[in-house]
């Protein structure tokens, strides 16, 4: 009988208490015996599709009779749309439909009741949409739409928006408190300190630039809506479409087979999906609405720019107080990430005050971007910790060690389910050669090059939790299909779920296939927050066990042998002295499909499930040009059991690469006067290329199962490796040169400026 239980889950830095439905009892923790699949490096089971060009992404869906939609976007950062004249556009041959605020039906989206606002609030805000026979016609028609805009005062810059001169965009102002935490007595600790540092850090806006842009293809058969969408959460898109269109869940199907990257930005329904659906329902034809690269960089999310003030106090070789205040540019976002999250939890500092503010501006809404808030906050915090260590004259790693060993979450007081952060430090220090580090840096490969070593710590969630369900269908030929409503956003979800199933069921990996990315399957959570494996994996294991029990029961009947004497290994039913192919047994039962069911059981509400890690960086800085060469990154992570060492390593390398972009080159430029994104393309927005890869990346895992986390002992890995790299690089640069760069990305100009400041001081 299903029953309702309380669960406690962490998601993207926040803790949620929920009621979930569970059935039966959880499986005991995977034992330590040798496993056939888990902990073995396995190539991706969907590799053939991905390398052959056959993998079908949303962008690759072309349906008979399909119309192409292009969206007219506001060229102004803030304006009232007074009048729209579409007569000329509609007269263009091939134009089949136009939607805008004067003719579109109400459609609820993120707290508003329309997708075409009267007051457009950023350059890129949706004004109208046109469906036409082909893309060129739709684009040409956009140019024929006449819009009468009444321009309104705007502000796009974070620091300008905080100031007194900025136009108020909301009735209660542009700045809102979004998170706060206080423990101990910061003022007293600062008064009593031996050393205090006070510094301001900034991080620039980072654009996701997923290679597949946001988009959807919608079809309507008069009764049911089917939407193909590049998304991290098919069920989330279904929810958003239900809210917008008022259709029941039973009439909406959302499909995402393969998807070309999201990094947090594809968490739910988009205006493009609603536009495609509205046109599909109105015109009765398949509709494709896929953003261009330029639109992607205006209206599909970003990592907020931040301004952060940190004050740290130290006494007797320890950190005694931290004060952290953060302002983040949410653009037109309805929420904001919390850069003070890591500050509150990494170190057991007794006196702490943190405040996080959301700042509204006339820029595109933020969206989650791989460890939102934590990347920005960790850069600032970990830079500040090094600054304090230098001021106190102590080794920065030794200072961290004193505060990183606590088995309890210093914010909530709960015990961690498991924690090996000190072990991460030990491994990382050995791999980078921390003992070579000198307080004045090292000689570089030329007179004008200085070399330095730095490190930074990482904390994140990734414990996952319910609800997540899976089924395992075993076919008459002995092959199995795992079905779960999750997505593979490039992390290798299909492969690890197949490994878990094959391992538990006792069949070959080649005999397991995985069907995901479809709302016609058991519910699965959003592929975000590094929760997928820890949420869905344990459910797959239970489903595989359920199927196995049924198979052994069937085999007992067919072989006339007690079930207790039977095992299932490598696709064979093994009894005393005999091995029979599973397919042979099932062949004797008339066309039988065995269906195993599983659901994720709740987390222990008295524990905090976290991931930990540390990155170490060795850099060379050319003091003539300010160029930073990242020579070596050592990434060490404590994420529980490693299911697939091959794909886990890839995740870490990819995270380090994206972090190198955040640390060195990636920043969106917004023109303050016009509110326009000046580099919304891949030419001028600098995503790392193969030439920007650090000379050496060393990936290490503690690799100990977290036995209190879930029945597999696994936690997540998607986000942890992007978190600490920028701080480690900034600390290495400071170690190399004495120059402290407090603004990420550490561009050459900023490095030269910091070198000049350091030189003036010396």
């Amino acid at each position, binding site marked *: 009988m299903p029953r309702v239980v309380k669960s406690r889950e962490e998601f993207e830095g926040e803790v949620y208490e929920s009621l979930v439905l569970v059935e039966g009892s959880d499986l005991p923790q995977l034992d330590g015996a040798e496993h056939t699949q888990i902990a073995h490096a396995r*190539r*991706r089971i969907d*590799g*053939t599709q*991905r*390398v*052959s*060009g*056959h*993998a*079908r*992404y949303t*962008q*690759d869906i*072309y349906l008979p009779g399909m119309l192409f939609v292009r969206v007219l976007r506001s060229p102004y950062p803030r304006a009232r749309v007074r009048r729209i004249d579409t007569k000329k556009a509609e007269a263009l041959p091939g134009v089949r439909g136009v939607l805008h605020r004067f003719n579109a039906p109400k459609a609820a989206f993120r707290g508003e009741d329309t997708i075409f606002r009267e007051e457009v609030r950023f350059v890129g805000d949706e004004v109208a949409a046109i469906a036409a026979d082909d893309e*060129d016609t739709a684009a040409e028609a956009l140019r024929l739409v006449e819009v009468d805009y009444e321009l309104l005062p705007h502000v796009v810059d974070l620091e300008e928006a905080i100031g007194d001169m900025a136009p108020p965009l909301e009735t209660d102002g542009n700045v809102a408190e979004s998170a706060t935490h206080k423990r101990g007595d910061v003022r007293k600790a600062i008064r009593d300190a031996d050393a205090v540092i006070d510094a301001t850090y900034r991080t620039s806006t980072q654009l*996701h*630039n*997923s*290679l*597949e*842009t946001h988009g959807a293809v919608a079809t309507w058969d008069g009764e049911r809506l089917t939407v193909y969408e590049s998304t991290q959460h098919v069920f989330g898109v279904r929810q958003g479409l239900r809210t917008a269109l008022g259709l029941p869940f039973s009439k909406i199907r959302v499909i995402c087979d*393969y*998807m*070309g*990257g999201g*990094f947090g930005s594809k968490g739910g329904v988009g205006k493009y999906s609603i536009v495609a659906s509205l046109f599909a329902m109105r015109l009765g034809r398949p509709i494709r609405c896929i953003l*261009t*690269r330029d639109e992607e960089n205006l209206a599909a999310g970003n990592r907020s720019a931040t301004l952060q003030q940190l004050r740290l106090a130290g006494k007797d070789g320890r950190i005694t107080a931290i004060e952290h205040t953060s302002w983040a540019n949410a653009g037109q976002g309805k929420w904001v990430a919390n850069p003070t999250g890591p500050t509150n939890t990494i170190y057991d500092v007794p006196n702490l005050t943190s405040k996080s503010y959301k700042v509204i501006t006339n820029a595109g809404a933020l969206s989650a971007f791989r460890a939102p808030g934590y990347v920005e906050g960790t850069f600032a915090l970990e830079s500040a910790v090094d600054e304090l260590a230098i001021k106190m004259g102590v080794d920065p790693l030794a200072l961290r060690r004193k505060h990183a060993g606590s088995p309890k979450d210093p914010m909530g007081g709960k015990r961690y389910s498991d924690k090996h952060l000190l072990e991460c430090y030990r491994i990382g220090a050995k791999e980078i050669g921390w003992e070579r580090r000198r307080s004045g840096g090292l000689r570089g490969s030329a007179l004008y090059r200085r070399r330095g070593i730095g490190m930074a710590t990482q904390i994140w969630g990734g414990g996952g939790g319910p609800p997540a369900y899976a089924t395992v269908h075993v076919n008459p030929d002995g092959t199995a299909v795992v079905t779960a409503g999750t997505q593979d*956003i*490039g*992390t*290798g979800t299909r492969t690890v779920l197949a490994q878990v199933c094959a391992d538990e069921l006792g069949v070959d990996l*080649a005999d397991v296939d995985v069907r995901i990315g479809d709302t016609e399957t058991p519910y699965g959570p959003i592929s975000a927050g590094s929760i997928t494996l820890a949420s869905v994996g344990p459910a797959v294991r239970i489903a595989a066990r359920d199927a196995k029990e049924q198979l052994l029961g069937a085999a007992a009947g067919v072989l006339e042998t007690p079930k207790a004497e039977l095992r299932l290994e490598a696709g064979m039913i093994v009894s005393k002295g005999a091995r029979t192919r599973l397919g042979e047994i099932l062949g004797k039962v008339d066309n039988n499909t065995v269906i195993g069911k599983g659901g994720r059981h709740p987390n222990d509400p008295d524990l905090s499930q976290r991931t930990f890690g540390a990155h170490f960086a060795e850099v060379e800085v050319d003091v003539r040009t300010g160029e930073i060469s990242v020579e070596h990154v050592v990434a060490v992570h404590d994420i529980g059991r490693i299911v697939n060492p*091959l*794909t886990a*390593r*890839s*995740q870490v*390398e*990819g*995270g*380090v*690469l*994206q972090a190198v972009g955040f640390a060195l080159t990636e920043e969106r430029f917004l023109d303050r006067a016009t509110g326009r994104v000046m580099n919304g*393309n*891949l*030419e001028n927005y600098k*995503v*790392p*290329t*193969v*030439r920007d*890869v650090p000379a050496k*990346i060393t990936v290490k895992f503690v690799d100990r199962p977290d036995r209190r986390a879930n029945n597999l002992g696994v936690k997540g890995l998607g986000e942890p490796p992007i978190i600490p790299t920028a701080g480690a690089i900034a600390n290495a640069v400071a170690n190399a040169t004495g120059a402290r760069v407090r603004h990420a990305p550490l561009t050459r100009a900023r490095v030269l400026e910091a070198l000049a400041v350091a030189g003036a001081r010396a």
Partner: protein
Amino acid sequence: MLRGPGAIDLGLTVNGEAVRVHVPPRRTLLDTLRQSLGLTGSKRVCDEGTCGACTVIVDDRPVYACMTLAIACEGKHVETIEGLTKDASGEGERGLHPVQRAFIDADAFQCGFCTPGQIMSIVALLRATPSPTEDDVRRAVAGNLCRCGAYPNIVAAGVNAGRRKK
């Protein structure tokens, strides 16, 4: 011969087969492959020659299909990712090109969206340089962005494919 401005007929060879298409003169090779010929393996990411996801081989040279007009390929040999696989009916990886196999072995992709372009760049490299060094591979894919950051494995796959072919 002056043609256009309306749609025109043109003939080219795609993956070894002669095809005729009817497209406007301004239609890119990429859109022609994807929309007229149903070859969606080549991806549209930037549509302005900055990312390499649309890389195909035209007369043995890698080109950005988004920066090449279909009409400019009249009479030429175009190879796409779909043409590398010898026999798609074979189960699993049989029939895959050595570079495709090397990509799977080295885990040289995550979301896979840039993968066809990366592979085509390396296939073109191997024809000119059968045993490339790491730096040869880096140069070959320097114009192919991978947002997931699979570069270290892409370079390894390129080098391994060269070794395997010998």
